């Protein structure tokens, strides 16, 4: 498992350049361009179960959802950041990508630290420290539990 570490204000063009917005929409098309201009090693090295640590305002910029879709599809277990930009936060919920706002964990992380998530308990272990993060509201958990917004919507529509 890898830990990827990025700074503040990682915008949607860094996550996935806007020039591909209308030519890439499937996972296979998106993945090679993730972090393309910022970190060319990411797309080649990312593995299932990897975690991203980032600073504040991760995902700012466009409403394009390839970043959230691409990160989930590339196997990212969670993005742990000081804060997230709003549209990205929403897109991640809708895609079932786990975002955790936990500034203390981000600050504590040192290269080589072991990182594990205890989702139920709402805690993250970083090296030998443990941090808690707020759990999500029920309305939003229901979307995640269904596997994403479209799945959730389909379940609702079936009941109509």
């Amino acid at each position, binding site marked *: 498992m890898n830990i990827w570490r990025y700074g503040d*204000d990682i*915008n*949607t*063009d*860094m996550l996935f*350049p*806007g*020039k591909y*917005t*209308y*030519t890439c*929409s499937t996972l296979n098309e998106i993945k090679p361009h993730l972090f393309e*201009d910022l970190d060319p090693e990411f797309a080649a090295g990312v593995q299932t179960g990897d975690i991203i640590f980032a600073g*504040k*305002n991760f995902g*700012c*910029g*466009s*409403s*394009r*959802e390839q970043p*959230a879709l691409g990160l989930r599809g590339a196997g990212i277990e969670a993005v742990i950041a000081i*804060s997230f*930009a*709003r*549209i990205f936060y*929403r*897109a991640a919920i*809708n*895609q079932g990508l786990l975002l955790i706002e936990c500034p203390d964990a981000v600050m504590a992380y040192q290269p080589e630290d072991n990182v594990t998530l205890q989702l139920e308990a709402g805690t993250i272990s970083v090296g030998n420290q443990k941090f808690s993060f707020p759990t999500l*509201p029920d*309305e*939003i958990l229901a979307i995640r539990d269904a596997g*994403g*917004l*479209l799945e*959730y*919507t*389909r379940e*609702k*529509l079936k009941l109509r």
Partner: protein
Amino acid sequence: MPRTFAEKILAHHAELEHVVPGQIVTVKPAHLMMHDNAAAIIGKINDDLARYGLIDSKLPIIVLDHVVPAVDEKTATNHQKIRAFVKKYKVRHFFDAGVGICHQVVMEQGLALPGTIVLGSDSHTCTYGALGVFATGIDRTEAAALLLTGETWLKVPQSIHITLKNKFQPGVTAKDLILTIIGDLRADGANYCSVEFHGDIHVLPIEDRFTIANMAIEMGAKNAAFPIDILAEKYLASIGVRKEQYSTFWADNGATYQQHLEYDLASLTPVVAKPHTVDNVAPVKAVAGTEIDQCVLGTCTNGRLSDIQLAAKIIAGKTVSPHVRLLVIPASRAVLNAAMQAGYIQTLSEAGAMILPPGCGPCLGAHMGILAPGERCLSTSNRNFRGRMGCKDAEIYLASPATVAASAITGKITDPRSVK
């Protein structure tokens, strides 16, 4: 209890007496705005649409604007898919390539009605806050679900109260104001917030408010909001919207805000956002003389008649520097026609500008004005992220139409107040 604009309008639409920031409410937006990305959105739910149908043919607004006319087979095919969807589901509000940029078209066509909620699969949907709409951007998956259900959840935001005082000095514009605010608050300074403008709003022409609301997302805001005053009423009347068609909401005195800010418009000067973030703001003075290769006048931020008029006035009788490509992209066909009628297009073209068809132009780096490595562009658009105009080794500076026009003449970043 006194309430903010956001609290009032969301409580109304959620049919609740009272809502508080952080609360999740279910709402039915009046419209869902989509552009070229509608192809990807409907692609997600083809089977579901066949089974359940489109919830309401009046809900979607689709405007083809991002890559128009189509640049290659793939974009052409996307447009074709969208036209087929429009036909099959009798989508009421469809605007094909050439009508204009989505946000401009939604407002011009009277589809952004004060007091309504409008969601859009585009981050600059917040522009409609200039007309007292609760408007915010959502992702494609959410747009797809909305086409099926017509409803979604919103978190009630905290609000930021910004008081504007006095009026601009000559050469200073609404773009300089919003860039200054973003420079102060930074890219995440209004994250999740409703940014509500108070004070001497009456000095701001409606197009200035569009520019300001448009860029609220660049400091992370969920939405922006202006009150409906006489100027807004006049604008709405001018596009054929009757008073009975809308209702207005505005903040109560004494509502609770996350923070209060105040700006004296008379004390502002022309500014730019330097590469590669919108909050990297500096006075034009500090970068004056920086050589540029391309100027862009247009986009949903500054492609309206008053912007083109301002640029034409500065450029009239002069010529564009031979070292600069000046691209002029009217925000809509209506703007283009009015600018032709008024002679601005003639003035700009004679001075050496290239006039491009209404649409997003090079703003998102897909076509028509892509930069080369090492090139520098001065643009009236709203984002200068690395790679935004298609090349990661190019630089984008953001500025007002006045600064862009003055700089197009000299070939260097130039304070518009220095042009005689």
